[in-house]
């Protein structure tokens, strides 16, 4: 009797095991940090596409803009030998994981579909490692945008500022009118986003390249850098005192509601405006941070596939779906970013999207498509965070601009 029960149980277990492994082949688990309204909506496009192809999407969202928490979860999962099937990654994190030999090569799909011809070279530096495709870029975000409430601008008779002085004059007017001029979130990456836009505007693309990408010591310690910190300190005076700890989408909401005039944020902010039913040009304005037109600091979300136990077929399907022009359009019109492929038509995009596509093509052609420091496309995590430390300490008034320059030089030197 006991034997029979054991046998039946064993049989049941075996069937359960088989069933679960057959199921696993058609299932992908996706780790990402797209949890705000606009982002979740954009991701749904991909989810539906895969479900039509018979692949179940197991969602694993880890909230936290910039993906810091998601990266922690990822590390724990990989260390435990149970990585998610697909993971949203940024910049140097992709390279770092590739170095560990953890990623599935996507050459099979990429070569067949000719990704190399349609994805900008600046992006390929991150999507490929050692000559092999290891990541499928979903989009290109650019970070040097200004998002402005049109009603506020109209009411105060303001025009789109073209220079630093214009910007300060506009902010002064908003302050005088009792509106919080700048909606700023209080997390290091948001402060760094503002900071790098100021740096690009103050020093120009060559200076940005020298300081942020080449880590040139003279550039980091230069007088220009002190001006950058001075300007950031000036901008800080236009931020309300209650900003620390605020999430980026709450800051965007302040602009949407007209409580604040402008936000300096990447183009994912547009998703929030659209989600709130606002129209570009009528309700809100998008323009490049004054003095940075022609240059784009980019941040591209990419999906990498982790080596797992199951077959790689669903991973290849996912990668192929991500690069399909239909998805690129459907996703990016919702998300606020622009397609990672340059051969996609901009017809379906709104005014901001079309400007983004045009700016990207221009910047790529003139070699002014630069990796964003704040978003991990200029330096690996250790150096990026060392810079964050200085930027956020300065922004929160821990020390003045002269000290900040000195701290920046030594922090970078130390983290190298």
């Amino acid at each position, binding site marked *: 009797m006991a034997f029979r029960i054991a046998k039946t149980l064993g049989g049941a277990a075996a069937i359960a095991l088989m069933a679960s492994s057959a199921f696993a082949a058609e299932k992908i688990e996706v780790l990402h940090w797209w949890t705000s309204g606009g982002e979740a909506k954009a991701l749904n496009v991909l989810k539906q596409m895969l479900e039509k192809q018979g692949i179940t999407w197991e969602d694993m969202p880890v909230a936290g803009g910039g993906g810091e928490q998601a990266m922690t979860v990822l590390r724990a999962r990989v260390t435990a030998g149970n990585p998610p099937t697909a993971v949203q990654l940024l910049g140097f994190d992709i390279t770092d994981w590739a170095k560990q030999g953890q990623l599935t090569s996507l050459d099979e799909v990429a070569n067949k579909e000719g990704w190399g011809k349609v994805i900008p070279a600046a992006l390929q530096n991150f999507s490929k490692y050692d000559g092999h495709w290891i990541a499928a870029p979903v989009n290109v975000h650019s970070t040097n945008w200004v998002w402005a409430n049109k009603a506020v601008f109209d009411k105060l008779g303001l025009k789109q500022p073209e220079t630093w002085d214009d910007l300060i004059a506009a902010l002064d007017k908003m302050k005088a009118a009792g509106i919080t001029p700048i909606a700023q979130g209080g997390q290091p990456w948001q402060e760094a986003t503002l900071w790098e836009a100021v740096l690009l505007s103050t020093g120009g693309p060559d200076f940005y390249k020298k300081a942020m990408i080449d880590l040139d010591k003279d550039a980091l310690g230069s007088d220009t850098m002190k001006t950058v910190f001075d300007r950031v300190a000036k901008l800080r005076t236009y931020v309300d005192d209650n900003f620390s700890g605020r999430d980026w989408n709450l800051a965007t909401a302040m602009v949407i509601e007209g409580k604040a005039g402008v936000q300096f944020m990447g183009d994912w902010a547009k998703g929030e405006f659209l989600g709130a039913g606002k129209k570009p040009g009528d309700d809100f304005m998008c323009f490049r941070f004054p003095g940075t037109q022609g240059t784009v600091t980019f941040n591209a979300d990419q999906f990498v596939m982790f080596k797992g136990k199951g077959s790689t077929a669903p991973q290849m399907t996912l990668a192929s779906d991500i690069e399909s022009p239909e998805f690129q359009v459907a996703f990016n019109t919702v998300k606020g970013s622009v397609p990672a492929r340059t051969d996609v038509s901009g017809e379906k995009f709104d005014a901001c999207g079309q400007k983004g596509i045009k700016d990207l093509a221009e910047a790529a052609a003139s070699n002014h498509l630069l990796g964003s420091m704040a978003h991990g496309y200029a330096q690996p995590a250790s150096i990026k965070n060392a810079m964050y430390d200085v930027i956020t*300490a300065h922004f929160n008034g821990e020390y003045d601009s002269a000290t900040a320059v000195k701290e920046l030089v030594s922090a970078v030197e130390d983290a190298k």
Partner: protein
Amino acid sequence: MKERLQSLLPRLVLAPSFAVILLFVYGFIAFTGYLSFTDSTMLPSFNLVGLANYDRLFGQRSWDIALANLAIFGILYIVICTVLGLTLAIMLDQKIRIEGFLRPIYLYPMALSFIVTGTAWKWFLDPGIGLEHTLHVWGWESFSFTWIKDTKMAIYTVVIAAVWQSSGFVMAMFLAGLRGVDNEILKAAQIDGASMWNTYRRIIIPILRPAFMSAFVVLAHLAIKAYDLVVALTNGGPGRSTELPATFMYSYTFTRNEMGVGASSAVIMLIMIASIIVPYLYGELRERKQ
């Protein structure tokens, strides 16, 4: 046979948990110690690099800030909790009628996790929605309490929240100690004409020495490993003004890809805690032998 089994049984029952603790506590402590001497970055690596990580650790400004904050937080937290806990305990010990009602009220904060405490205090202290906002709505326009947004004062809000959470627990420890004081001694003191103040100062508080020791050890290790409270309350901010060693350890190990430095900071924290716990345990064990 039966006797042998009886003497073996406790050991057999304890063996699995002992093995588990050996591996998952002491094993991983040793592993972390080893990692602190390696060039581990994103994932553990086994290349030894000597004391380089410790060198880097003590060169980090964030680490200096974390240690300075720990000193402020630790000292204030332990002192205020102890004084407040003792005062509450003495007042509750005056044989008042509603003690059974009051005691749980003071103890309840301890039933909350530090995350809940941190989140609740974050909202309460936030000038935009909490205390300041409420008083403004009620008409006290000039009221201002923005410590939580102030780089220099934010660490004190962590102290406020932590004291709120723990002082009831310290009170319970002292109350237990007070109930253990022999009534005969108190009567003898009364007969000798000692004042209330003197009875407490010269007799009762010295008798409470073990309770003081326990309170100190519990509070000190809570202070050193404080993590969740800070994460929920300020997340290390504004800027990095409320960084503590535990938040430092977490960010270096898991978000900055500098596992070696993170491990070395964990080892330093272990040494700090050990330097408090080991003398205490040593003292306790010696007393028991006598």
